[in-house]
């Protein structure tokens, strides 16, 4: 009897000890950091490799959820808005920054930086890559994958002496990379040889795609216009907007220098066409410059040239569009400090460079100047200059998604020939004004 009691007693003690020890172990266990990225992101391969290293290094566990690109934005906002707390850190696009800040979904990182600054802080990143995730003097994240728009051209074609000669004979001036739209058009027409499987240029004009509204902004700026005035009234239906859009539409409808199918292309589809050596010149995000030098993606290794985005008139200064991805820390996270440490680590010199070698556009000044990088991807040389020059971005307002959509529809209608540029832009401007009014921008 007694012995049985003792047995049970011992067992109970053992159990208690076991529970106590295991709960202590649990308590000491490193936190789990969760994030969400989209499937096929250029940063994902390097991210996975680096996260695995980090886990080994620190014992922190990192969980990466992958969703389709189109759903990244909505899943992120849904989770934040329903206080799901599923993500400790996220990688949003700068387009979404104001939404996230207004919703108080992401936290400023200034205090963390003060305590534990990233390598070479504050001169680690070009100022242009810290600007778009800052608000009211607070910084909300570190940049990770960048993409100013550049103009690309086929160096082999532009340097060919026969082509040079023929071009000069036909147009009366030298064949050099275009600085203005009229030169761009001349050259696109000159190289447009559909029977030889070569297009002058290729645009990505699909409604509902990422690029159409961006392209309109680029045209608008290059004609000297602006999207909003200082009081947030839409002014993109100015003459600059109309002319810019008309030029853009004419590339397809009047001159036929971009394929008729370009209305079905998103930026994901026109890039590969250039890399497949079927286009003479085009504008696109910076990754095209990197990818054109990568064997598994490109048939034009060593043949890609790049220059600044053209303007309508040389009196207007060259502008480009910049939008980038950045790491931000969720306000709802219980492990903000750990999340910051990981983000800092992902953005350190070694990892930034490694990411560049694996197909992203790096963000650190040190990577821009790294001899190894410059050897493989010579365009990094000019990226700092491009960023230091005038880069503009999409309107930093939470209503941007809607504005983007409306402008895309307007452009699509003009391309389809249903409306003139003026009609479509006037209509879109009126709708945008309505949205801004409802959102309370015009209260004095």
């Amino acid at each position, binding site marked *: 009897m007694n012995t049985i009691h003792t047995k049970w007693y011992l067992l109970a003690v053992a159990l208690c000890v076991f529970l106590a020890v295991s709960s202590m172990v649990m308590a000491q266990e490193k936190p789990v950091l969760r994030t969400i990225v989209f499937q096929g992101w250029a940063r994902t391969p390097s991210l996975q490799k680096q996260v695995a290293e980090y886990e080994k290094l620190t014992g922190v566990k990192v969980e990466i959820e992958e969703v389709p690109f189109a759903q990244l*934005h*909505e899943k992120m*906002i*849904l989770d934040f*808005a329903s206080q799901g707390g599923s993500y400790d850190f996220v990688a949003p696009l700068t387009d979404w920054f104001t*939404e*996230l800040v*207004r*919703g*108080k*979904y992401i936290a400023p990182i200034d205090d963390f930086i003060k305590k534990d600054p990233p390598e070479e802080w504050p001169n680690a990143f070009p100022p242009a890559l810290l600007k778009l995730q800052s608000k009211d003097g607070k910084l909300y994240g570190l940049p990770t994958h960048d993409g100013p728009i550049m103009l690309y051209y086929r160096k082999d074609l532009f340097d060919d002496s026969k082509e040079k000669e023929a071009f000069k004979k036909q147009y009366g001036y030298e064949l050099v990379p275009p600085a203005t739209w009229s030169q761009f058009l001349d050259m696109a027409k000159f190289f447009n040889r559909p029977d030889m499987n070569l297009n002058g240029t290729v645009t990505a004009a*699909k*409604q*509902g*795609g990422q690029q159409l509204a961006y392209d309109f902004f680029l045209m608008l700026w290059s004609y000297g216009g602006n999207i909003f005035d200082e009081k947030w009234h839409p002014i993109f239906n100015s003459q600059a907007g109309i002319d810019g859009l008309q030029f853009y539409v004419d590339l397809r409808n009047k001159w036929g220098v971009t*394929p*008729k*199918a*370009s*209305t*079905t292309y998103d930026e994901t589809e026109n890039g590969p066409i250039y890399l497949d050596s079927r286009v003479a010149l085009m504008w696109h995000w910076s990754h095209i410059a990197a990818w054109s030098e990568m064997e598994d993606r490109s048939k034009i290794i060593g043949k890609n040239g790049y220059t600044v985005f053209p303007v309508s008139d040389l009196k207007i200064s060259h502008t480009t569009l910049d939008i980038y991805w950045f790491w931000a820390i969720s306000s709802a996270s219980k492990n903000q400090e750990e999340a910051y440490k990981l983000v800092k680590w992902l953005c350190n010199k070694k990892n930034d460079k490694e990411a560049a070698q694996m197909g992203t556009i790096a963000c650190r000044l040190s990577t821009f100047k790294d001899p190894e990088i410059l050897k493989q991807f010579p365009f990094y040389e000019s990226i700092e200059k491009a960023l230091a020059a005038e880069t503009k971005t999409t309107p930093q307002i*939470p*209503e941007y*998604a*809607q504005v983007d*959509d409306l402008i*895309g*529809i307007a452009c*699509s*209608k003009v*391309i*389809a020939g*249903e409306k003139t540029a003026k009609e479509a832009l006037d209509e879109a401007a009126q709708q945008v004004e309505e949205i801004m009014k409802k959102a309370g921008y015009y209260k004095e």
Partner: protein
Amino acid sequence: MAFSRHRRFGTPQGMVFPSVFFILIVSVYPLVYSLYMTLHDWSLTNAQPPMFVGIGNFIALFQDSRFWYSLRTTVLFTVWVVMVEMILGMVLALSISRNTRFQQICRSILLIPMMITPVVLSLMWKYMYNPEYGIINYLLHFLRIEGLIWLGEPAPALPAVILVDIWQWTPFVFLLLFSGIASLPPDVFEAAQVDGASGFQTFRYITLPLTIPFLLVALLIRFMDSFRIFDTIYVLTKGGPANATETLSIYTYKVGFNYFNMGYAATLSYIILVIITFASQQFVKLEGKA
């Protein structure tokens, strides 16, 4: 009596209740919630609680030309899809009703399209529709027909989307109608043949009236599903070009998950629900009469 003790757990009448409870719990809460949202202005991205606006969303809806246009597109899509699928399904069911080996195999093959995931399948159609390296224009080229920019011009975009839906769901209509015809008593047809009725007469006066219940069922299901069409269009065109393929579901989705304007999205989805329910009730009434 092996099962008599089950009596304690309920009566046969009660066997419907697990389902009713399940549906109540899972669907009524969201519906009430949505209804609440239709009366509010609520954006997910401004960190403010929903603001009561009464029927403001409904008023905005009636003034929203984009809503009317998408309604028009939805109706066009639904009418075409349902009509063509009914006719094709009927014709196929009539022509493949014999029990030869060949026809049996054809029947099996015809069922395949409805089993393929719409999202993946639409992507494959997008690949085939590609004006440059797509196979469709390539084949048309052989027939000396100039290919179209299928998904890139407003005029062919809606028909192109309709075609995908017809391709995928005609098999379903075919299956229902074929089963219906197979269930008809064979002596009716024999009698008709003895009376010397022509093929068309047999169809018009015997097959058609007898299969009307099946037709109505197919019609109802296809109507409900095509009116809320989302996956296919979202993948193929996202509503473009020039908004030519923006159906109500696509518009609702954009308002809800791109603009995060939840109140207005709820209002739009309620309108879809009301239209489908109302129209379905008419079908069910018709069915009762038939």
